[in-house]
C-alpha cells in the first residue's frame, strides 16, 4: 500500500512551499486509486471528491487577493514603467525613468522619511495610550466594559467629520481650543496650530490619536482579557507593586498581541490621508505632506499616474521593509509563547 500524506492535523511545518506539486501528485494518486481498484471504490471516490473540493475553501480569498492585490500590482508595475497620464495611460515604454524621477526628487524622499517617522512614532504613542486606556478600563472591570463602548464613538465618526471637527477645534480665529485658551488667559493671541510644522504635526497626531486609540484600546483590552488567571495574584503575593506587576508580568505576557496590534496600527498609520487632506493639505509648506498625500496629489490632481505608480511601489516596498522587523518580532514572541 503506498503511503500518502493525509490532510488531518499534521504538523504545521509539513505543508510548505512546493505544495502545488505535492497537491497535484496527491490528486492524481487519489484519482488513480479510485479508477484502478477493480471493484467500485466508494470511499475512494468520496475522498477524491473531498480532495477536489479543497480549493473551494481558499478560492474566495485567492480571488480577493487577485482582485485587490495581484491585478492592481501588475497594473501598477506596468504603469510605473510607462509614460502615462490619467487621461492617456500607457503611451510609451519609459523604462525606469519614473523611478529615477521619484528617487531623484528630494521632496518625495523627504515625504517618505516623514511618513515613516510619523507612522512609527504615532503608532508607538497610540499603542502606549491604548494600552494605558485598556488597563484603566480593565481594572475598573464592569464599569470599564461599559465605558469601552463609549470609546467606540471616535471609531465610528466618518473620517471627513473627524478632520472637520478637529479643524474647528484648532482654528486660530474662533476655534474652540483657542477660544478657551484666550478666555483662560493662557495665551495673548490665538495660536496657529496648523500654521507651523511642529504644531501641525502635533495637531494631526492628536486627531489621529483621538480617532484610532479606541481601536487600539479595544484590542489591548482583548489581549489583557486573555491573560492566564492567577498570575497577577501570584505576583501580588510575591510582593510586586502595580508597576512591577505591569512591567514584569503583564507586559511580557501580552508582548505578542501587543506587537500584532502595533503592526496593524502601523499599517493604518502609513495610510494616513484624510487628516492631512482636511487639516493641513500637506502644509505648512511641505511639512505635513505624507507620501500617501503626495501620491494623491500627483495622481488625482496632476494626473501623473505613472510616476505616482512608481512612488506607490517604492512606498509599498519601504512599508514592507519597515514592518518586517515588527513581523519578525511578533512571530518570535508568538513562538516563545507556543
Amino acid at each position, binding site marked *: *500500500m503506498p*503511503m500518502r*500524506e*493525509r490532510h*488531518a492535523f*499534521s*504538523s504545521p*511545518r509539513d505543508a510548505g512551499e512546493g505544495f502545488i506539486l505535492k497537491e497535484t501528485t496527491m490528486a492524481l494518486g487519489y484519482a488513480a486509486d479510485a479508477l484502478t481498484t477493480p471493484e467500485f471504490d466508494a470511499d475512494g471516490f468520496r*475522498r477524491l471528491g473531498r480532495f477536489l473540493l479543497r480549493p473551494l475553501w481558499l478560492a474566495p480569498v485567492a480571488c480577493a487577493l487577485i482582485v485587490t492585490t495581484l491585478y492592481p500590482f501588475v497594473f501598477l508595475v506596468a504603469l510605473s514603467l510607462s509614460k502615462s497620464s490619467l487621461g492617456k495611460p500607457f503611451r510609451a515604454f519609459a523604462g525606469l525613468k519614473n523611478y529615477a524621477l521619484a528617487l531623484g526628487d528630494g521632496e518625495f524622499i523627504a515625504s517618505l522619511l516623514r511618513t515613516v517617522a510619523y507612522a512609527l512614532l504615532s503608532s508607538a504613542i497610540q499603542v502606549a495610550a491604548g494600552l494605558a486606556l485598556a488597563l484603566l478600563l480593565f481594572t475598573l472591570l464592569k464599569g470599564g466594559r461599559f465605558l469601552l463602548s463609549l470609546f467606540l464613538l471616535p471609531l465610528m465618526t466618518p473620517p471627513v467629520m473627524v478632520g472637520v471637527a478637529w479643524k474647528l477645534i484648532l482654528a486660530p480665529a474662533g476655534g474652540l481650543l483657542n477660544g478657551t485658551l484666550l478666555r483662560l488667559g493662557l495665551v495673548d493671541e490665538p495660536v496657529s496650530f496648523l500654521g507651523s510644522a511642529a504644531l501641525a504635526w502635533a495637531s494631526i497626531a492628536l486627531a489621529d490619536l483621538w480617532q484610532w486609540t479606541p481601536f487600539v484600546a479595544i484590542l489591548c483590552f482583548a489581549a489583557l482579557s486573555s491573560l492566564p488567571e492567577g498570575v497577577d495574584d501570584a505576583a501580588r503575593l510575591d510582593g510586586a507593586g502595580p508597576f512591577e506587576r505591569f512591567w514584569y508580568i503583564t507586559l511580557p505576557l501580552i508582548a505578542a498581541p501587543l506587537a500584532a496590534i502595533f503592526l496593524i496600527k502601523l499599517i493604518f498609520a502609513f495610510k494616513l490621508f484624510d487628516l492631512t487632506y482636511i487639516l493641513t493639505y500637506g502644509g505648512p509648506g511641505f511639512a505635513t505632506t505624507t507620501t500617501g498625500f503626495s501620491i494623491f496629489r500627483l495622481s488625482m490632481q496632476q494626473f501623473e499616474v505613472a510616476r505616482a505608480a512608481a512612488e506607490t511601489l517604492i512606498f509599498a516596498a519601504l512599508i514592507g521593509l519597515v514592518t518586517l522587523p515588527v513581523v519578525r518580532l511578533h512571530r518570535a514572541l508568538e513562538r516563545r509563547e507556543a
Partner: protein
Amino acid sequence: MSAISLSGLAKSYRDVPVVKGVDLDIAEGEFVVLVGPSGCGKSTLLKMIAGLEELSAGDIRIAGRSVVDLAPAERELAMVFQSYALYPHMTVAGNIGFALRIAGLPRAEIDRRVRAAAATVKLEGLLDRYPRALSGGQRQRVAIARALARQPKVLLFDEPLSNLDAALRQETRVEIARLHKALKATILYVTHDQVEAMTLADRIVLMNNGRIEQAGTPLDLYERPATLFVARFLGTPAINLFGAARMGLPGAATVGIRPEHLLLEDATHPGGLAARVEFVEELGDVRLIHLLTEADEKIVAKQPAGSPWQAGQSVRVSWRTEHLHRFDLAGQRLDDAPEQRPEKAA
C-alpha cells in the same frame, strides 16, 4: 482475526522520528494498555490508529481491513480524550448524539442510543446540562458515553484519568474495568500511570523512545521484565539496582531486585550486604525501609507492618537468587536461572 493489527508503524515530524516501527496485534475483546514515559510516542501511536495523525510508514488494519486511507470516522472506532474534548456549546445529550446525528440516524434511534449510552455510565438526569455545569468526573463519563454511543469496534482512551483527583481516578478505573467486562469491547488505553496499566490491562504494551520495549500480561512484565527499562518503569517503589560486578555476578552488567524481595537481618547476621537504615516510611500495611549500603547505594526494602527496623540501625541485606533480574550492558534481560551461569567468569 485480530481486532487491530499494526505493522511497521512509523511516524516522523520533519526528520525527527517519534514512532519507530511498531508491530502489534490486539485480539478482539482484549484490553490493551499502552504505557510509557511521557514523550515515548504512545499518544502519537494512538492518534495514528485513530487517523488523527498521518503515517510515515506502516499499515494499520482494523478487523482485517487496512484503514490507512480511511478518514477517522470511517475506521469504526471511538476515542476518549485526555481533555475530554466535550463540545462546550452542546448539551450532554447533544455531545453524546453528535456522531449519530452526523451519520444521519433517525431521531428516535439517536435518542434511544444516547439514553442507553448515558445509562451505561450513569448519566441519566444530566442529559440537558451543558459541559460547563458538570464536575470533572461527570465530564469524563460524558466523554465515555459519547464514545460508546457509536458502538465502535474499538475504543481508544488517551490518558482519560489524568485530569481527575486520586479518589475519582480509582473509582473511574474500576468503572472502566467493569465496562470492559460488560461490553466485551476491544480497548486500547494510553496512560503513563503504571497502576492503571497493571490493574486494567489484559496485556500491557510498554513503549520507550518510539518502540515497544515489551508486551505481555501485567504479571509477565512485572516478573520477567525484558529490559532494564521495563524493570525500572514498573513497580513502586522502583526496583533496586546494583552493579553486577560488585554483586559477584559476572556476565551481567546490572542486577535488579524488587524491594519486596530484599531480606533484612540484624547486623550480626553473617552474609549479605552491610547497610544502615536511613529512614522508614510507614504506609500502614507495609513499611518502606530506606537503606544506604557501604558503597553508598540507596536501596529500599518493603517489609511487613510491625517489622522492627528503625532509622540509624545497621542491618545486613540479602536475597534469594531466583528473585534477581540480570541485565547486560545494553539493558537486555539475561536468561533466567542465573545459578546456571555464574561459573563462567567467577
